[in-house]
């Protein structure tokens, strides 16, 4: 049984749904008691501040659960969705709807019939990893809005999995988008962020099937990438390019030139600042950080602790151009506080890169580079200055590793 004391439990399924859908002008209904949506907005969705109603709670009460006042809640959702004129309605389950077996799929069909709006449900409960909720939400979004006849964009690229719980504020992925443009790609859609200047925030989603390649930057984008290969034949590469070497390696993967591990990497021109690093966080970014620490900074051993399941990364299916990651002996998938504390306090580890919340587990003298993971610390470190993607990520890490 997992126990937490110093850490927060990571965001779970319906947080992921919110993260994936927040930017697309819909109404996300968290079907649970009062308070669920409140906490998502106040703590996990700083984008909420002074914005329109996007993630709202059903506000279930005891008697509603006992008596099954489904009609009342369907009425409430219809009334709100129509009144707010949102572009779609998404229903997301909570522990309560899971336990009492609420038929949210039936809700969705009824609400869609009564509003003539796109309505879908995302099956979540309350204990599954946030990336799973986000992944399901992205698939549902694709089902509803992608245009199979979207015009083809030569060198067009979609970025999949850029949800704020994994990649933070949109500004943090701008360096990546810039690098893609410089590398000859034209971003078509970013899942999940509307792009500046688009009157319809869903226009990128609609046009996404016209892209030539997909870049998967977190595990929540993997299922969508596989679906888009199956449906539209769009190949994909997986990775979050951190630093200079990562940028080059990832661009090469996207071009189908070589797998990351095949490419020769020049040795860094200075001695490594550390011998043994531990990276704790989202799997794709974690492996991207390893690539950077090793190839840009010469750190010999880098272990990656994936706090959400990372297995899917290594199940390369058809259409996968390559993955900027490789499983190594010291890697581990766990979000257990006690286990992570053990690893962080291994006397051999002299560098830790992790969300600042993990610092509370550190008893030894290892250097600590704070890199917020919003699924852990949410609003607490939302406004912190940090970078990870491509050269900006290199500069941020260099500031800690070389100039501290």
């Amino acid at each position: 049984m997992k126990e937490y004391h110093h850490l927060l439990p990571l965001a779970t399924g319906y947080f992921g749904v919110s993260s994936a859908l927040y930017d697309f002008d819909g109404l996300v209904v968290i079907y649970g008691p009062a308070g669920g949506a409140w906490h998502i907005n106040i703590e996990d969705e700083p984008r909420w501040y002074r914005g329109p109603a996007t993630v709202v709670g059903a506000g279930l009460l005891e008697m509603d659960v006992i008596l099954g006042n489904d009609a009342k809640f369907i009425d409430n959702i219809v009334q709100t969705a129509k009144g707010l004129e949102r572009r779609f309605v998404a229903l997301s389950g909570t522990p309560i709807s899971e336990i009492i077996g609420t038929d949210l799929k039936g809700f969705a069909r009824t609400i869609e019939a009564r509003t003539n709006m796109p309505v879908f449900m995302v099956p979540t409960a309350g204990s599954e990893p946030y990336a799973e909720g986000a992944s399901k939400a992205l698939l549902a979004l694709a089902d509803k809005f992608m245009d199979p006849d979207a015009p083809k964009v030569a060198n067009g690229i979609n970025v999949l999995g850029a949800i704020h719980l994994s990649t933070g504020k949109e500004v943090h992925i701008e360096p990546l988008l810039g690098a893609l443009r410089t590398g000859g790609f034209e971003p078509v859609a970013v899942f999940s962020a509307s792009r500046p200047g688009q009157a319809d925030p869903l226009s990128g989603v609609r046009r996404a099937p016209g892209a030539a390649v997909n870049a998967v930057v977190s595990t929540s984008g993997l299922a969508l990438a596989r679906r888009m290969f199956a449906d539209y034949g769009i190949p994909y590469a997986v990775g979050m390019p951190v630093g200079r070497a990562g940028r080059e390696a990832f661009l090469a993967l996207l071009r189908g030139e070589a797998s990351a591990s095949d490419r020769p990497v020049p040795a860094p021109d200075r001695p490594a600042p550390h011998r043994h690093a531990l990276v704790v966080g989202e799997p794709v970014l974690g492996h991207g950080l390893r690539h950077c620490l090793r190839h840009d900074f010469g750190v010999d051993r880098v272990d990656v602790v994936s706090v959400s399941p990372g297995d899917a990364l290594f199940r390369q299916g058809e259409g996968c151009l390559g993955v900027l990651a490789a499983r190594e002996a010291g890697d581990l998938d766990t979000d257990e506080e006690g286990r992570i504390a053990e690893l962080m306090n291994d006397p051999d580890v002299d560098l830790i890169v992790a969300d600042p919340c993990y610092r509370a587990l550190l008893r030894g003298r290892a250097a600590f580079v704070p890199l917020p993971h919003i699924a852990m610390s949410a609003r607490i470190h939302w406004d912190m200055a940090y970078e990870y993607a491509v050269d900006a990520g290199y500069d941020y890490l260099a500031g800690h590793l070389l100039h501290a």
Partner: protein
Amino acid sequence: MDLDHARIKIADLRQKADFPFAPLEGVGPNLAGWGVIETCLLLPESLAVMAGPSACLRHSAFMAHARGFTERFHMLCVSELDMTLGNHLQKVEQGVLDIASRRDEKVIFLIVGCPDYILGTDFTGVINRLEAATGRRVILGAMAPITIGLKDSPFTSAYTAFFDFLRHESRTPDADTVNLLGTFMPLSDSGELYQVLRGAGVRRILQIPLCRDLKEFSAMADARASVVLHPLANGLNGKMVAEMDIPSCFAPTSYGFEAIRENYARIARAVGRELDVAAREAAAREAAGPMLDVLRGKSVAVGCAINGSPFELALFLVREGIDVQALFARGTIKPYEWELIERLRKVRPEIPVYNASHPALCGRTGDFDHVQVAYGVDAGIYCVNAANVPLSRYQEQKYGYEATLWMLERTREALERPVSNYDWIYGHNFLI
């Protein structure tokens, strides 16, 4: 969705059913509680263990982290499937045993959430076995928002549970001891209420957040009377009255001179002493004058995130000639507030009261652009051009005329050196 869906004139707000119905919950920092974990941990020598799905734990953990309670707070993750099948009881029991083996607190609050509440999970055996195995008191509590408005709030229930540590105390009434119930941030012992009570011969004043251990807390059983400063304490106080025969009065944090005078009169009756506050009121009125002058001519909004009642503060401001343009409230209007609403209706019936959690209100800041001073972080969200004065229950606490002057000082400070609403919420953690 029209804003009219989210508001009602105070003239028409006569009963709970009149309050604008929110079909779905929009959000804002407008909840009135303290957080169940924070409330439990007010009890000295206590530890809180919360068991439930990760999502529910994450919600509570944020508040505990924001208030620095992490040291005495542990969480056990339980899956929905285990709960439905009842497989979690053994795991939770073992989890609590493991935690208890590493800790020396005398009291363990085991907090469960909505799923166990709805499933009707029976923890009696778990609690009995844990008490026998650890020798500690183990109290079951619920962080169950699913009960909001139907039963005592989770916060009230947790606070009421403290009675378990008083009920067995033999009571030897001490005429010189008074309990102050319902403080989270404690009142200072150099503050007005302490001065007034001490001036009347009260020697010992007890507040739960200042009790160093359970022994000190148990001295509350001997008090001459209890003064309830926040409705949250009504449950605990009710038991102390009914089962221990400790007199009490309800005298909530207020800002208006009249309300404060009435509060002191109630306190005087409860403690059986005359309280000399006339000079304090005169001095406060004189000191408040110039600060109220600054507010006259300005548009003001009052929200429900303040410490105290937004209706009481609005009534005070209106009576002082200040232009209150909007009130923000939730549907959980407290019983004592209906009389304040009645009084307010007589002097300014046209003031709109907005349901602070109505989805139609979210993002509608333009409708409040004219407001210049907003009390409460919930009002501050909507009133983007206003100087925001949080009057948060997490700031230093004042009582009596001192609270009036503190409120006005904070107003002056906000007008001269404004702090953004965003910073109050996210920088200072004034989230509820």
